[in-house]
């Protein structure tokens, strides 16, 4: 496969963002005496929400080609793989392109503490860790919700959004679930691979034991990278906590009503009293509807009825969002330092993850801490590179962090417009105001802003994309056939 190599000077650090759609696939190359050494940070994509019959925008179908390109670039040798968390858009590539990854030689794997299989304090007995029980419950819950919704076959924007989030959590295609009545047959995602298969590969398929980290842990940097001068600090996630487990159990109980035992997934309603009790609005005095006369003088009853019908809260949506946040907050957040450059990779960390390392605690522990901890402020105010969290969603880069960030750095945002959220309810990903705010502090490149020219994977840039790459204050961006490079 012909590849156009970017003009890397000898001894240059390089960060490469592959364009896969809505997902992260980053390759950091560190110059060493043994030649360039590569660190792979996530490899995944998810298709996002899609109306029935429409094409989902998130997956542009290029991940396999990107993996193949990366394989050639690295000679199938990686010093380190970092897997920030187990969402499909960060790990599916490992199983979707299994035939390529199977041949890889890898020096080390770093994963979030939440991926720990066994209790580290009970090595003899091999007791299951709290974390792994949590992950099982979470995945089972997500699968349960996803099956139910897939079977229900509802067609509305909210259901599409929920299904997209759940699909990301399970890595299983809901069409598959719907076709098999709720039990995924091949347990695969659309396009191949599955989260479970990717995790199995990463944990057992590389002939090495991954390292599981939380904030405060000292990471074991592969010797070849350490000798070259690379250091790493683990900023997140917060250590595992039984409180999180309790929260998940509570969520499970609450969503139980949606996963119920009813045969017919569509009819939760039932007549509690029988037809002899049915009545009309006119059997009530006019005063019963007086509250709605301000809404509609002509027909206050209709206004009231409409309000009640719409009043039932969208608990399922919120439950799916919470599940999504649980997983995002498990993200491994790594700050690399090389030759004095600070490079922050934040995975999909949301508020809770950031708060822990920025403030030294969450609001209940440090409710009025207005000062970001000195160390954290020092990191943020003098950045060289920032991998934009969660594909540019609002809550993945807290406003306070943006305000503190400085250093005229460069940012890269791997995303695909239209895959999640909507402008109408100000939830679109990537979020306009966030990118504007980041844009004041850094030069940002979005993956969907440049066209892929690699033969067989041609994909245009999205509408309205700028024609040229920005020029960062330090270093440079360069365009490749299926990626953008940043040389700090």
């Amino acid at each position, binding site marked *: 496969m012909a590849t156009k190599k970017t003009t890397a000077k000898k001894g240059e650090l390089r960060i490469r963002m592959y364009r896969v759609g809505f997902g992260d696939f980053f390759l950091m190359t560190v110059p060493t005496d043994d030649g360039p050494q590569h660190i792979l940070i996530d490899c995944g994509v998810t298709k996002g929400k899609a109306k029935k019959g429409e094409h989902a925008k998130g997956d542009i179908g290029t991940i396999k080609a990107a993996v193949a390109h990366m394989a050639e670039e690295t000679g199938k040798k990686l010093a380190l793989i970092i897997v920030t968390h187990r969402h499909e858009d960060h790990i599916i590539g490992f199983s979707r392109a299994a035939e390529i990854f199977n041949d890889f030689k890898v020096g080390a794997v770093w994963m979030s503490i939440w991926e720990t299989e066994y209790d580290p304090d009970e090595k003899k007995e091999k007791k299951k860790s709290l974390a792994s029980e949590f992950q099982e419950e979470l995945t089972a819950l997500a699968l349960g919700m996803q099956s139910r919704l897939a079977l229900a076959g509802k067609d509305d924007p909210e259901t599409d959004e929920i299904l997209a989030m759940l699909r990301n959590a399970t890595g299983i295609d809901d069409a598959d679930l719907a076709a098999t009545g709720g039990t995924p047959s091949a347990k695969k995602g659309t396009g191949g691979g599955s989260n479970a298969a990717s995790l199995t590969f990463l944990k057992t398929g590389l002939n090495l034991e991954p390292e599981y980290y939380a904030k405060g842990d000292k990471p074991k940097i592969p010797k070849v990278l350490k000798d070259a001068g690379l250091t790493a600090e683990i900023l997140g996630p917060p250590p595992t906590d039984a409180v999180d487990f309790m929260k998940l159990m509570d969520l499970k109980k609450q969503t139980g009503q949606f996963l119920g035992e009813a045969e017919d997934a569509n009819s939760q309603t039932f007549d509690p009293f029988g037809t002899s009790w049915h009545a009309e609005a006119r059997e009530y005095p006019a005063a019963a509807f007086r509250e709605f006369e301000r809404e509609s003088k002509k027909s206050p009853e209709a206004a009231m009825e409409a309000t009640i019908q719409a009043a039932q809260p969208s608990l399922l949506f919120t439950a799916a969002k919470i599940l999504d946040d649980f997983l995002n907050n498990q993200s491994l957040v790594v700050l690399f330092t090389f030759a004095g450059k600070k490079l922050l990779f934040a995975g999909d960390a949301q*508020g809770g993850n950031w708060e822990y390392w920025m403030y030294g605690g969450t609001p209940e522990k440090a409710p009025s801490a207005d000062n970001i901890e000195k160390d954290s402020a020092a990191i943020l105010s003098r950045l060289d590179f920032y991998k934009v969290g969660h594909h540019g969603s609002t809550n993945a880069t807290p406003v306070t962090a943006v305000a503190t960030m400085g250093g005229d750095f460069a940012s890269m945002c791997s995303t695909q417009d239209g895959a999640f959220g909507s402008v109408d309810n100000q939830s679109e990903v990537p979020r306009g105001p966030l990118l*504007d705010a980041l844009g004041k502090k850094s030069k940002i490149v979005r993956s969907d802003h440049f066209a892929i020219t690699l033969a067989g994977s041609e994909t245009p840039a999205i509408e309205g994309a700028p024609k040229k790459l920005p020029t960062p204050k330090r270093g440079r961006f360069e365009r490749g056939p299926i990626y953008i490079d940043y040389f700090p």
Partner: protein
Amino acid sequence: MKIDNPVTRPLKAYAFDPSAGRLLGNEMSMAVRFQELDPGPVVRDRWARNAIAIVDYDGANKRYYKPVDLDDRGILLRGGLNPSEADPYFHQQMVYAVITNTIQHFEEALGRRIHWRRGLREGDMEAAGREDIWTLNIYPHAFVGQNAFYSPNAHGILFGYFRAGSKDVGRNLPGQPVFTCLSHDVVVHETTHAIVDGIRAFFTEQTNLDVPAFHEAFADLAALFQHFTYQEVLMDTMEKTGGRLYQYQLRPDAEMTGYDDYSTATGQQKKEPLLSAQISARNPLIELAQQFGEATGMNRALRSALGTKPNSDAIEKITEPHARGSILVAAVFDAYFAIYLKRTADLWRIFRAGGGSANPVDIPRPLALRLCDEARGLARLFFRLCVRALDYSAPVDITFGSYLRSIVTADFDLHPEDEMGIRDAIMQSFRLRGIMPEGAGFFSDDSIRWPRAPESLPKVVGLDFGDPNGLTWGQKGKAAEVLRTYVNKNSELLGFSAGVPVLVPSFHPVFRINADGSLRTDMVVEAVQTVEKDFNEAAPKFGKIKFRGGATLIISKPVVGEPGAENNESAIRYVISKNLTPEREVRQRRFGEHLGLAGMSERSRFQINFSMLHGGI
């Protein structure tokens, strides 16, 4: 010759919920304030500010159910319909009775009539007017779901109904319909949210972590203290716990003897109940919504009064509103039981001196009655205290720490001597759960109380306090003018920030009886100022927050003979403030960020969404 209406109307309801069956006292009769009613029932008096209307509209099935006429002779003569799960007339009756009863308790405690939510008069006045709730609508079967919630948007309270699960459903039948409107606790809880929303307009704005937790705690407290007014249940529990009301388990009707059951396999003696009478029940007084909890597979009640033990660091870890609220509930109940034990110590001494044992299994009925009187009286007192503390709270940004100070101040105002040691008990039980008095200098009674307003503060001249029936429209208009002028003229003296107008969203006279039996009249006034700020100055596109500061003024009506009485000059006794300080601003911003509210601009995003809160999600 016209016969006067009665003062009360007898109506029946479940003291707990249908699953408690006919357990002593579960099917209770309530003497509810008499009101003229139309079928629904709907309160006929359109000018009553605390009116309710039961509108049985089912949003899931899109139909109405027949409204009950509580003036029907058949119902009147029976003293209310008998409890029945299958009869929607009874559901409507129960919901009406329990809500009216709850309103009554609050009005007694507050010393005035309550009113429902008033829209915030800032900006669009018409929209604010549409938000006003004049009559609280109650929808007993509004939707299918394991939820019930107060909805300002629907101008009322919606109750869900659902089918119990197939497993672990306690005393419910698998798959049976369960109606949240038949849970006394749930009805009181939701009504409390609506009442608080009427008292403190800004309390639903999520400015800090304690706000949603406070709402949940306060509503749970109202429901729990209500339990102690049910005489039969109180007596039964008193007897089955040997006077130890704080115990979770009740002594069963029949003891296990040890000869009940043997395991043959291991030859070990196993103690398992043979009879249902040997199964010990949970103490209903200190548990909430047992049927709901069991029907949703929790295998226990929804929450309990003593969920958080002393010496707990839960306050630093727990953020979920119900769990966090439980900390406050446990703190209040810990103090309640401490005083109960102190007050009943003499009774126990007399009992033991008469030959009674130190840890009795059975207690004589006269002793049980006296203990019940004490328990009930104290519950009334504590409930009153918790409710009055709202009047002693700043209008915005409630926290557990400031609520503690409000409780202590409210108690001091009524019982300066604290003969019962209530304030000390409260301070201790709060401290043991990590709830610190916000801004207090020392951990002592006089330091924790809100300080009295400085004597140098100018008096309010010409304020009309009205009478216990409330202010007329004319009186209200004049009083509003006097108060608005006063707070703006003296805004800096009152601690407000210069250059920002001060609004007076509410004021009401309060009539209370002093410890010496004399009547005292106060005016409780909310004064609030608001500034709109960027969520983050560096990033104006992230939307704005409304940052509010406010003060509750407690103004005393001058007593004839006192200085100032001739000229109608009223002294301000308390100015309880949360000013526009940088610390509060940071805390509100951080919390907003924690909730993920940055980047959106519509105002309602900062409001508590009770439907989500009660969905447990």
